[in-house]
């Protein structure tokens, strides 16, 4: 068959990157959102999200992307992905109303025989609960990673597709579209696909929690977690891509949502949630590692300290601050002076009552008693420890993600503190 027309409803982080990847694969794409202002901006290639290579993708394949806030345009589509954000509250509880509302709009606009694919992250049972015929209804697991969204959308490892009948063939338009990405396609029942997404995230959280637990132990017993990691990655049962970098807990919103969903499902069905609950507790505990270090090393000893913070986003290459450890840190520094810089996130007085914005990564160090690197932006890796040492008033650098070279910092006379190493 000729190339199907693909639709994306919901110009979210997920929707925009997925649409751009579809265009890059040679498909004509209709991009729909109920917000005309968002559509207006996107049509002019003004992007509301930060992702490496996304502007380049828009520049190269933009003519295949059509933006509209008129749902009637979706009637041209053979496959329509519904990809709104599923907002979560502070505890990670999902609000599914936006995805239901968008499904309803799309349902009313799409032509008979087109495939509707839910792409947003939803709990098991959601897709089957939609009040529509199931023969052309699918759920596809999204595997977006903030900061790597384009790469993940263009070169997926596999497609996991939830259907009403896993043994039946996919509709030709959907099959053609997915086949264009040249990766395995795994059909499964709706609930399996919905839980597959959660299962992936639980495995990732388990690895991160293991790394955090053992990295903390390293700090106490004189070991160095970074020396241990290579031996783990060479173990075939663990693997070279395993998430073993210690961090400041789980952030970003998506993993937290799945943790909450699994605990709620376990509660509902009477299965054992305790391991997942301990991951949540460990995440909260590790989130405050920098605050504890600051109290031990600086706040108890220095009068009226100036604290410099590099990084506000929850991770590098994103503008998102959802559950950002940096903002959590700032919320615990109420009475102290703080200066901050982030390449993308603007300094905001809601982060801290007396926060100052610095104009560059290096100038944030001027006169500070301590430097804290809260987001591992690559820009920060280029900083010279000797220049940092010249500008700081104090000697301490707290760098949980090991952005800077530890030896270079020590050679510059800095007291270097990072996760997983006794110092």
């Amino acid at each position, binding site marked *: 068959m000729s190339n199907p027309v693909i639709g994306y409803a919901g110009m979210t982080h997920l929707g925009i990157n997925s649409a751009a990847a579809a265009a890059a694969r040679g498909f004509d794409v209709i991009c729909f959102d109920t917000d005309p202002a968002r559509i207006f901006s996107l049509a002019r290639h003004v992007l509301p999200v930060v992702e490496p290579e996304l502007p380049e993708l828009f520049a190269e394949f933009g003519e295949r992307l059509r933006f509209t806030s008129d749902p009637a345009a979706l009637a041209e589509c053979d496959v329509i992905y519904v990809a709104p954000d599923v907002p979560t509250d502070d505890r990670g509880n999902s609000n599914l109303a936006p995805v239901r509302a968008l499904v309803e709009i799309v349902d009313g606009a799409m032509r008979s025989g087109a495939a509707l694919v839910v792409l947003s992250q939803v709990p098991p049972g959601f897709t089957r609960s939609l009040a529509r015929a199931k023969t052309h209804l699918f759920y596809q697991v999204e595997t977006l990673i903030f900061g790597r969204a384009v790469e993940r959308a263009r070169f997926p490892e596999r497609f996991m597709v939830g259907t009403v009948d896993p043994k039946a063939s996919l509709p030709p338009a959907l099959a053609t579209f997915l086949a264009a990405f040249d990766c395995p396609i795994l059909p499964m029942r709706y609930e399996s696909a919905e839980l597959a997404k959660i299962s992936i995230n639980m495995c990732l959280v388990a690895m991160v929690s293991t790394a955090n637990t053992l990295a903390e132990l390293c700090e106490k017993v004189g070991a160095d977690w970074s020396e241990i990691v290579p031996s783990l990655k060479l173990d075939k049962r663990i693997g070279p891509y395993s998430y073993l970098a210690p961090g400041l807990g789980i952030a970003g919103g998506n993993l937290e949502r799945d943790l909450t969903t699994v605990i709620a499902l376990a509660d509902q069905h009477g299965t054992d949630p305790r391991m997942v609950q301990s991951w949540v507790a460990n995440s909260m505990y590790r989130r405050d590692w920098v605050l504890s270090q600051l109290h031990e090393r600086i706040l*108890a000893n220095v009068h009226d300290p100036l604290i410099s913070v590099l990084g506000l986003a929850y991770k590098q290459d994103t503008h998102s601050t959802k559950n950002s450890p940096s903002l959590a840190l700032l919320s615990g520094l109420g009475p102290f002076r703080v200066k901050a810089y982030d390449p993308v996130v603007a300094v905001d007085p809601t982060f801290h009552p007396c926060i100052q914005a610095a104009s560059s990564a290096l100038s944030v160090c001027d006169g500070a008693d301590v430097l804290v690197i809260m987001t591992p932006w690559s820009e920060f890796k280029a900083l010279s420890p000797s220049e940092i040492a010249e500008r700081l008033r104090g000697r301490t650098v707290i760098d949980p993600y090991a952005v800077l070279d530890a030896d270079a910092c020590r050679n510059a006379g800095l007291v270097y503190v990072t996760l997983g190493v006794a110092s």
Partner: protein
Amino acid sequence: MLTHHWPKATAPDRVVVLGARGFVGRTLLTALASAEIPSIGLSSADLDLAAPGAGEKLAGILRPTDTLVMLSALTPDKGRGAGTFMANLRMSEAVSDALQKVAPAHVVYMSSNAVYPVVCGPISEATPAEPLDLYGAMHLSRELMLKAATQAPLAVLRPIMIYGAGDTHNSYGPNRLRRAAHKDGKITLFGGGEEMRDHISVDDVVGLLLMTLLHRSAGTLNLATGRSISYLDLAYKIADQFSDPIDVVLTPRQSPINHQHYDIINLRRAFPAFVFETIDDGLAKAHREMLAEALPT
């Protein structure tokens, strides 16, 4: 976690302290006087909370603008049995009765870390309270009684073992070890003194209590320093305070080793500017005060 009803520190109108002659009560009243905060200290001699009609009497003293601090308790050295447990509950019943008659502006209850079981890993306010003895059960019961009795902001503070020269109790901790060294020239430890424990000075407890009053804080907070040391290290630190050599005597271990560590991040967040006394400074101060008290007047 505490929430502050007064984000900016503000002196309360008047503080009524129950348990005024106790170790913490005396120190608190001195601190309140220094801060020029009006206060009334009530000891059991002034108002026996376990006696009939105590609630009525306390209600006659309380004003709606008061902050009530409840420190009164019969500690385990007064008995560990059901009688002590029930007497403690009667005291709390009287306070609850008073709170229902006169609602003060703020209530602070000094509970105890005895509400927690022996756990592996750091204890925080999220650790489930599952007391192992009647003393812990008493404190947890009192917390619940007061929560049920008042709509006022209620702060529940759960201190670890408190040390200081004025302590009248004799629990296995810095005070007992210091007194033993002073009296006998030796410190005897259980086993090899391997257990790790956190110890907080009475000055730090009162400092945190004062901050709780000044911010009209509500919620539950553990009062710990976040730094545990072994009994053996503690014994040597105490021994170092004396000019004469002190023997540290180890004994055959009778029970399994258990450690206690505290995650104090909620305290850090509640009172970011609070700086703890180091254990070395605190022990030295307690030692000086003990010697000063021992001097003939």
